[in-house]
Every structure is written in structure tokens, then in C-alpha cells.
């Protein structure tokens, strides 16, 4: 009896995932526990193991397909077994929402169709009908980049026609020049009614013909880009910088290192511990700004920015104020690791889940930066490197004291400067007087 492979469900809110890769080909033998396929949510990438021994009999989705969770995506079974009963639509139909959007767009502009283009990779076979090719060449259409709508994805005449309709008209000269020299057509020409003239064609460097490479954004990158851009657009952000005397925490660190068997509590753990204490005193900073209201959290849900190969992730430690510093430290290590592994629960990556975020660049020697708030949180703390600074040691004696830079970005919509400054100062105070059990 064949076993169906489904797109796993990822958290409550994930409706569909982007399928990224089959690790097995149809016909390959599969052992239980073998890595079978990879997929992404809007937050993270995942790999899934095979649940059964057998042969991969069929797959119903390809790289890049958006597949609703729980939908059948493949079948494992014995050779010869029928897979027909498991077949499903593969890639999901566009959702109603998307359709509505498209319809609005169609109303708005007459050049209704959205022309999908892809990046041509070296060695890719372009499937194109002779007629479409002839037209593409005559009209200087870069047909290699078109996504075909014909049988088996073949580029057919209508695809080329649609592309032509979506682009400004070329003057006959421009057409010839573009054809001959392989120049790119700009979006908007300088001729009458936006007609592209030969001079408008963007020349590629004749010596380093292709001195760049265009790569498609991975899904996670697209999401980060969107979130960051939205943050800057939708809030009134500014950053205060302040130094905290780091002698206490450096001393604590030294003690930890010296003591055999002690939990490896890092400076970052200490900073976060101090931040939690400060947040308990400043509930205005432990909040979400919702436009016409503010959501104040009774507990501290601390987000921590983690750099991974897949991109920036911000997992959250729920109820961080209940934890001892060693508990906090352990939990940080766990979530950071599962982020790097790609196995983090997407729920924990949501900016809605955290009440405040810490981003630590101190390890990299950054002396000052302006972190970007994860909306709807009202602030984020950037942690900088420790630098020695001259200080009045009392009694007319001046010496170098290690200071840790703290950069607090806050949303002026939610917090005023005074409050923010006092909160930032409180973090410094907590750091300078930190008490932990070693």
C-alpha cells in the first residue's frame, strides 16, 4: 500500500509553503529517515524526512510551487503501485485574495496581464515554438526570460505577444539595434508616448559583457526586505546611544570562565538579563504600538536577532522574565541553533510574538548602529562592542574604563525621548550592578 507524502503543517497560521527541493528522484529508493524534501514558509526553511521505506513513486509539485499544507505532494510505495488516487492539484490555485488583487489591477491599467519573467540560467533549454521564436527575434524580445504558457511550459506566440504588449514600443531602429547588439529594453523610452529609441537602450559593457549576476531572492530574503521596509515606512524611528560601564559584567564573565562546570553565560545573556529587569521597570517599552492603541505586556517575551545562513531570524523566548540567567542562556542557545538548523517553530519567529528585541553586534566590533524595529514592537536594543574609554576614576585620577555601547531605537509614536532615555539608562544601571549566581 503506497503512502502519501504531504506538505507538513507549520504552526497554526501557515496556510501554504513554498516547495523548494526534492532530495530524491521519482523511482529512487527511499529509507525511512532519509531527507526527502525541503520547503520554506514565509519565515523559515525546513527539511522533511521520509516516514516510510519504499520507492518514491511520484511527485506532484516542483521547485517553487506554492503548496497548501496537508496537501499530497508525493507518494512512497512499491514499484508498480498506482499513484493516481493520490494526485492533487500540485501547486495551489491562486487564492481568492490574490485574484481580487489581480482584478483590481486589471481595472486600473489596460495592459492587464502580468508578465512573469524568469532568470535564464546557463544551460537551460528554452522550450519555444518556432513561430514564437520568429516573432521574438523580430521584435527583440528576450524570450529566454519568458515563462511559457503552452503545453509543458513551452513559450508560445501569445507569451511573446503579451510581453510585447507589456513593453513600450520600440522604434524600428531601436528594434534593429536591440536585435543586433543584444541590448536591454528600458521600461520607459524617451520618444513620443514613451517609445524606446535606440539611444535609450542600455548597453552592456562590451568588454565585461555580463559583469553582474542576477539571482532570484530566496523567500526569506523577500520577507525580511518587506518587513524592514515596512518598519521604516510605518513608524517614527530614532536611535539613542549610551555607554554602560562594563567592568561589572566583564568581571562576572571572568568568574564564570574561571569556575569549572559553571554554565557558559555570555555577555549577551547578561545584557538580555539586564534588559528584562529594565523592561519590568519600564512597561512602556515592553509593548506593541497598534496605531490607535498600545498593547502592554505583563510578561517579557524577548526576541533575539540571530544571524544564519538563511538570513536574519528573530526567535522569541516566551516569558523570559520567569527565567534565571542560566535558563535564559540555555534557551537562547537552543532557539539560535534551531534557527540555524531551519527547524524553528515559525510561530516563534513572528514579530507579533515578541514584546521587545535585542540585536547584538558587539561580537563583530560594531561601535554604534541604528537597529530597525520589528513592528509592532515599540523599541529594539542594539548592543555594541566594548571599547575602553577615558573616565574619571575619582580623586583627579583618570583612567581607561571598558564601556559597552547601547543603541536604543524606539518608535517616537509610542515613546517620548525622555522615557526612552530613562529606559536606556536603566539598562545601563542594571548592567553595571548586575547580580547573578555563578
Amino acid at each position, binding site marked *: 500500500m503506497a503512502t502519501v507524502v504531504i506538505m507538513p503543517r507549520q504552526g497554526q497560521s501557515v496556510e501554504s509553503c513554498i516547495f523548494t527541493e526534492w532530495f530524491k528522484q521519482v523511482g529512487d529508493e527511499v529509507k525511512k529517515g532519509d531527507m526527502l524534501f525541503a520547503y520554506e514558509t514565509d519565515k523559515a526553511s525546513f527539511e522533511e524526512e521520509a516516514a516510510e521505506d519504499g520507492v518514491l513513486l511520484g511527485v506532484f509539485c516542483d521547485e517553487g510551487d506554492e503548496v497548501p499544507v496537508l496537501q499530497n505532494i508525493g507518494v512512497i510505495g512499491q514499484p508498480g503501485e498506482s499513484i493516481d488516487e493520490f494526485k492533487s492539484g500540485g501547486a495551489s490555485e491562486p487564492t481568492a485574495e490574490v485574484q481580487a488583487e489581480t482584478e483590481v489591477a486589471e481595472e486600473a491599467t489596460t495592459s492587464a496581464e502580468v508578465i512573469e519573467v524568469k532568470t535564464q540560467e546557463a544551460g537551460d533549454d528554452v522550450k519555444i*515554438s*518556432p*513561430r*514564437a521564436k*520568429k516573432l521574438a527575434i523580430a521584435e527583440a524580445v528576450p524570450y529566454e526570460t519568458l515563462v511559457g*504558457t*503552452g*503545453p509543458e511550459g*513551452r513559450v*508560445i*506566440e*501569445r507569451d511573446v505577444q503579451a510581453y510585447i504588449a507589456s513593453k513600450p514600443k520600440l522604434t524600428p531602429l531601436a528594434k534593429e539595434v536591440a536585435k543586433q547588439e543584444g541590448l536591454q529594453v528600458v521600461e520607459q523610452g524617451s520618444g513620443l508616448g514613451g517609445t524606446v529609441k535606440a539611444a535609450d537602450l542600455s548597453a552592456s559593457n562590451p568588454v565585461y559583457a555580463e559583469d553582474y549576476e542576477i539571482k532570484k531572492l530566496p523567500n526569506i530574503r523577500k520577507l525580511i526586505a518587506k518587513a524592514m521596509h515596512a518598519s521604516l515606512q510605518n513608524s517614527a524611528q530614532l536611535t539613542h546611544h549610551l555607554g554602560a560601564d562594563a567592568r561589572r559584567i566583564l568581571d562576572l564573565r571572568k568568574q564564570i570562565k574561571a569556575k569549572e562546570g559553571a554554565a557558559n553565560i555570555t555577555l549577551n545573556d547578561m545584557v538580555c538579563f539586564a534588559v528584562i529587569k529594565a523592561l519590568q521597570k519600564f512597561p512602556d517599552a515592553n509593548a506593541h504600538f497598534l496605531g490607535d492603541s498600545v498593547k502592554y505586556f505583563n510578561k517579557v517575551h524577548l526576541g533575539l536577532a540571530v544571524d544564519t545562513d538563511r538570513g536574519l531570524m528573530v526567535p522569541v523566548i516566551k516569558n523570559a522574565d520567569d527565567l534565571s540567567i542560566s535558563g535564559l542562556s540555555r534557551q537562547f542557545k537552543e532557539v539560535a541553533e534551531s534557527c540555524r538548523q531551519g527547524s524553528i517553530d515559525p510561530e516563534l519567529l513572528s514579530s507579533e510574538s515578541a514584546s521587545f528585541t535585542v540585536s547584538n553586534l558587539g561580537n563583530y566590533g560594531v561601535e554604534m548602529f541604528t537597529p530597525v524595529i520589528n513592528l509592532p514592537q515599540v523599541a529594539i536594543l542594539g548592543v555594541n562592542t566594548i571599547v575602553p574609554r577615558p573616565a574619571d576614576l575619582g580623586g583627579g585620577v583618570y583612567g581607561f574604563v571598558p564601556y559597552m555601547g547601547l543603541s536604543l531605537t524606539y518608535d517616537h509614536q509610542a515613546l517620548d525621548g525622555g522615557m526612552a532615555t530613562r529606559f536606556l539608562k536603566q539598562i545601563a544601571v542594571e548592567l553595571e550592578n548586575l547580580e547573578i549566581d555563578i
Partner: protein
Amino acid sequence: MPKSQFIDPKEVRKAGKVQFKDIPVNQYKKTVKEEKSNFSKEELIGIYHDMALIREFETMINVIKIRGEYEGIEYNHPGPAHLSIGQESAAVGMAYHLDVDDFIFGSHRSHGEILAKGMSAINKLDDAGLKDIMENFFEGSTLNIVKGGHIGDLKSLARKFLVYGTLAEVFARETGFNKGLGGSMHAFFTPFGVYPNNAIVGGSGDIAVGAALYKKVNQKKGIVVANIGDASMACGPVWEGLSFATMDQFEQLWEGAHKGGLPIIFNIMNNQYGMGGQTCGETMGYDVAARIGAGVNRDSMHAERVDGYNPLAVIDAYKRKMDLLKEKKGPVLLDVLTYRYSGHSPSDASSYRSKEEVEAWEAQDCIIAYGKELISAGVASQDELDAIKSDITELMKYSMTLAIDEKVSPRMDLVKNPEIIGDMMFSEGSVDKMEDRPVDVNHPMEENLRVKQIAKKERFAFDKDGKPFSKLKQYQLRDGLFEAIADRFYKDPTLVAYGEENRDWGGAFAVYRGLTEALPYHRLFNSPIAEASIIGTAIGYAMCGGRVIPEIMYCDFLGRCGDEVFNQLPKWQAMSGNVIKMPVVIRVSVGSKYGAQHSQDWSSLVAHIPGLKVCFPATPYDAKGLMNTALQGTDPVVFFESQRIYDIGEQFHTEGVPAEYYEIPFGEADIKKEGTDITILSIGATVYRALEAAEELEEKYGMSAEVIDARSIVPFNYETVVASLKKTGRILLTSDASERGSFLKDMAQRITELAFDELDAPPVVVGSRNWITPAYELEEYFFPCKEWMIDAIHEKIVPLKDHVVKNNFTNAEIIRRSKLGI
């Protein structure tokens, strides 16, 4: 079965027995001495001469094949050489009494018959007639070669002409009797009454009957001789020829001058072997071939075995039998016993017979024995006979020298004129009537009931408001065919039509209804249910100069006349060097509803054979126009009709089907519906389903389809299709023929070749499944329908929005089916 013939159960159920007349065997016993009073000395010596001429001609070819030289003249002849050494007396005896107007048809072993009949004709023609023939044959090009330096009378020049023309043909020279396109096995010369010799065993067995039919129908002088071998008596088409030739209706139903038996002698050149198979004792059971006559008709075909080793015995038999034919008591079956010393062909080692047997026959050699008799009867001296022989040897040397000279006797120059054979495939004539004389009809056309009835019909299917008239009011496709055919019957006196149920029934599909009343029996009659004879006789009829419409009631029966349709009909125009015309229009009806052996569209099979024109109209307008063109032409046409649409009205030609005569040229496809997004090219009745598909494409998918009706498939002008493709970029081809090997595949390939850059998708063929045709109730799973066409378009040409396919046109399915051969 005509109503005039009452089948009385009391009569036919009566007890009795069938009695056969005796069939004489070798009854002729006279000697030259006894016959001296009936022949002049010249005639008796002439018989010797003709036999010796044949013997030397074939000996020459034999030694060329074996030794590469003759009398010291070197030559290599790679072509065939089926010799009849030993059989000369049979050939000369057969030809002796025949007049120029008497036609002989032969086999692959007919050099002897050509020379015998040729010499006979030369002896009977006067100088003017002889001169006229030689000077006009291929503008005198053959004559000019032998004319130079000729000393002697015209008849001796004609003898050179005959030997040279035959030999040049054997050697495939353009100066041969058939421009070298016939060769050894097919050489012939119609001006001397030598009609095509046939390399298919028994091939002349039905064709010659058609020639006799021509003589009878058109009241032409002369008889016809079918020279066929003893082994050919096993061949179906020969039996069919015998059946056709002995139909009772000639005696019982045909009237006036046309009443009576066909003037034909089936002359079995019984050399007692079929290749190596011994017909008496091994491969046949008739013992004496003449016995067959007893089984064929009441007269036992006046059958007789004649000693073919004695020329006088054969001559005697012919005299008697020709008298019978003159009395319209034919046909006649002659079993002329003979023997060939030579092998079947030069590669024959004679492993199937003993040396003693060959020597025993050689000891009775017909030429030596006859020569001895001439001497003993005092007709000729040995010296005279020797002189004849050495004169013949000189003639052979002379003819061979000329025939192998590349300058004098070149072969066709296909370098200089690469299309010379192509140009001969069709005669492309446009001829109102094959002969100018009054037509035999029973009443003026306007008095014909069918004509009157059609006059009341609506020649366009729809009224002013676009509402269709009732089926009965509509001028139907069968009416279009009727009008064209009736018109030709009233124009061309040679036109005859026949087939199964053609007369009283009015044709199985009522095309001929009304013609029974209009035409006498000899112009429209029922044939035996014997398709080989239906087509074979039509070929013979046309060869002699008549126009004919044979009918194959169901396309599926084409296999029954495979040799006639594939090997004979298409070949003889070109094989004759365009001497022969072939105005034969075979009506072929494509069935449906009747299952696996009555529902097949085999247009692809005939389209594959070079030399046939093929058309398949689907509207009354096209049917009439194309039938007019077919009947005006001089080429063989296979005219397909579909039983699905005999009753269809004219839906396209808004002015209605013209009552007047008009022609639609072959090869021109017709756009039945204009469109811009996809072209559908259809053959035959499928066009109506293509139009349904076009309608649905337009309504449901906003796709505008152009529907092109091929109308004819050979010839075919691709320009219309290519022009359409320039517009649409997409093409689907459809017909009711089974998809594998369908002519549509040929068209799809041509289209790809001619318009590759116009194609937005590969041309897609939707034909019938590669199955048996199932019962009518299951036909929707077998024949193409609009759903199949739309599914195929969606799958292979352009995905249609929201279309749900029901039929599998995927590549995987194509591969699966191909792997299984289904």
C-alpha cells in the same frame, strides 16, 4: 436482380442433374500435307518464320543473360528475361488468324506473343496503314532508327521495326515501344493490337475482360485474347474475370446489338509449370486446365485442350473459336498445351524437373518438327529454311547493335529532364467524351423522374432566415453526384458504370436512382460481387479508349481488388510511355455503423500509391464539382464518398449548388469557415465534426478556428493551408482514418516542412483509434469527435482556460499506445 426474371421455386427445386458437354482434348490430327490446300506456301513458311523469329529473339536474350554477348556482340542486360523457348508454336498459332483489331493481353512471358501478334498484324495491314502506324508512333522516333539504309519492302521494314522496338523496350531504351518504362515483362504495342503484358500472374485475367466489354459496349470490331499461364488459373482475379465474362445478363438482359456473349478467348498458355510448381500433379487439381470451363457456364466456355506444339492445331482451334465469338457465343476457354525448355528466368536451375523430361520435349521441338513437315510436304527445302534462319540471325544482330548503342538508343535522360517520369504519371487530359458519336440513352434527360424530382429541391440547405429546409427538400450530396454522372452519361457515349447493386437497386446508397430508367443495360449494370473484376475490367475498358465508373460498395472491399487498385490502375499510363489513358473513376463508399469490416476510411492507402488521384468531398457542391472534374479527366481517380453524409444538404455555397456544369479543380482545399487562432484541416465527412469543434472553441474558449476541407488529397496544394497557418500558427488535422499511417500524418509532416517557422505548436493529428471499428453504439469511442479535437488542442497546441480534458492525448499515452501497437 431484375423483376423481369422470376425465380420460380417449382422450377429451381426440381430434381435433376447437371450435365457437361465433352471437353475435347488434342483432337486435331491433320498434317501439313493435309492442310496444304487451306494455306498458301507463303503462309505455311510464314508460320515457320514467325516461330524461328521468336526462338532466335529469345535465344539472343538468353545468351546475353548467360554469356554477356550474342554473336560476338557484348552486352550486359541486368533486367528481367522470362523466356518462352519451346512455346513458339502456341504463340504463332494464337496470333495467326487475329486481325489488327483483335487485341491480345499477356503475361510476363510474352515476348513470343508480341512478335507473333506483331508479325500477324504486319501481314494483315496494308502499306498505308502500316506506314501510318510507324510514322506516327512517338513521332516516328522508333521508325527513324531502323529506316536508315533499309532495302526491301515496307513489311520487311515493319519486321525490323517490330523486333527493334521490342528489344529496345527490353533494354529499357527511350526508343522502345514504351519509352523503356515497361521493359521485358510489360512490353506492348497497341497499334498492332498488342495490349499490356502483365508481370502479375493472372493480371490480364480480368483486364482483358474489360477490353472485351469495351468492344461489346461500343460495338467495336475484333475479339480479345487473354494470354494467361496455367498457374494463373489459381488466382482469384482470374476466376473473377471468368465470372464477369460469363454473366448471364449478356445473353438474357442486354438488348439489340449488345445481346450475346463477350468476344474473349481465355488462352491458357499451358507450359505446365508455374515457376517451378507443376500445375498438373502438384499445385493444381484440374488435371486438364480446360476442365475449368465446365464449372463456369452452360457452354463450358466452349473449352478445349489444343496441342500447342503443333501450330496448325492452334490455328485450327482459333478459326473455330473466332467463329463462335462472331456468333456472340463467347467467351471461350482454350487450354493450349506447350512446354518451355528455358527456365522460369535465367536464375532458374530447373531443379524441379528432370533432364530427361526436357530432352523428351526438345526431341519433339515444335519448330524442328514443323520444319520437317514442311520439307516432307514439299512446301520448303532445308536450304530455304536455313536461309530464313540465317536471315533472322542477321536481323537480331542488326537490332541488337542498334538497341545497345547509347547514341542511337539512349535511355531516358533524367539528368537533363529530371521530371520526365513524373510528367508521365498523369495524362492530365480534359476530354468531354472519349468518342464522338450519339449516346445510347432511353429518354431525354429532362424526362427523367429523378431529374424532375431534383428540380424541386432546395439547392442551399437554409432559407432566408437561416432555417434549414427539411432533409427531403434539401438537394443532397447524392443528388450532386447524380447530376455530374448523369450529365456525363448524356455527353460521353463510352461512359459505363457498374458494380454491385448499381442498376435496379439504384446503387446501394441511391446515387444512381433514376439512371436505371435512363440507360440501357450495357451502360449501367450489376456486376458479380467480385471487386477484382470490377476494377480489373474497368482498367481494360479504359485502356481501349472508354470511360468508366466502377463502384466499390464499401471502402473495406478495396482489399478485394488490391492488385487492380495498387498495381494495375495507377501504373499503366506511365508504363506505356503515356500511350494509354486511364479515365477510370472508382466510386468508393466509406461506411459507418456496420462495424469492423464496413466502416473504414482507407483513403490513406490509395494516396500512398503513385499514379492515383484521390478525392473525398463532403458537400453537395464539392461532390458535384469534383465528380465533374474526375469525369472530364483522363486519369484514374479514387473518388471517396461517405455514407454518413449522402443526405446532407449544401451548407456553405450560399448561392446553392449550380444546376449547370462546373468543375472544381483537384488539389484545391476549401475554407469552410474562416478563423484566426487555429486551423483545422479535415478530410471527408469529419469536416462536420471539425465545424462543431470550431463552434465550441469559439463559444467556450474565445478561440477562432479556421476549418479547411481538403476535398482532394492527391494532388494537394499546400498553399491554402500554409496561408492559413501564417495567420493562425496552429493546426489540427482530422479524418476518420485510423490514426497510424493516416494520410494526415503525411500532411502534418509536409506542413511542418513547409511552414516550420509559422508553427506555434506541432501539427496534431486526431484520427480514429488503431482498433477495429466497434459496433455503432460504441463508435463515439473510435471515431474523432469535437471533444477529442478540443482535448488534443488543449493538451498539445495551446492550453485552454478552465478546460477539463476527458481524453488522453499526453505524450506518455502516445508512447504507451505506440509501444503496444494500438
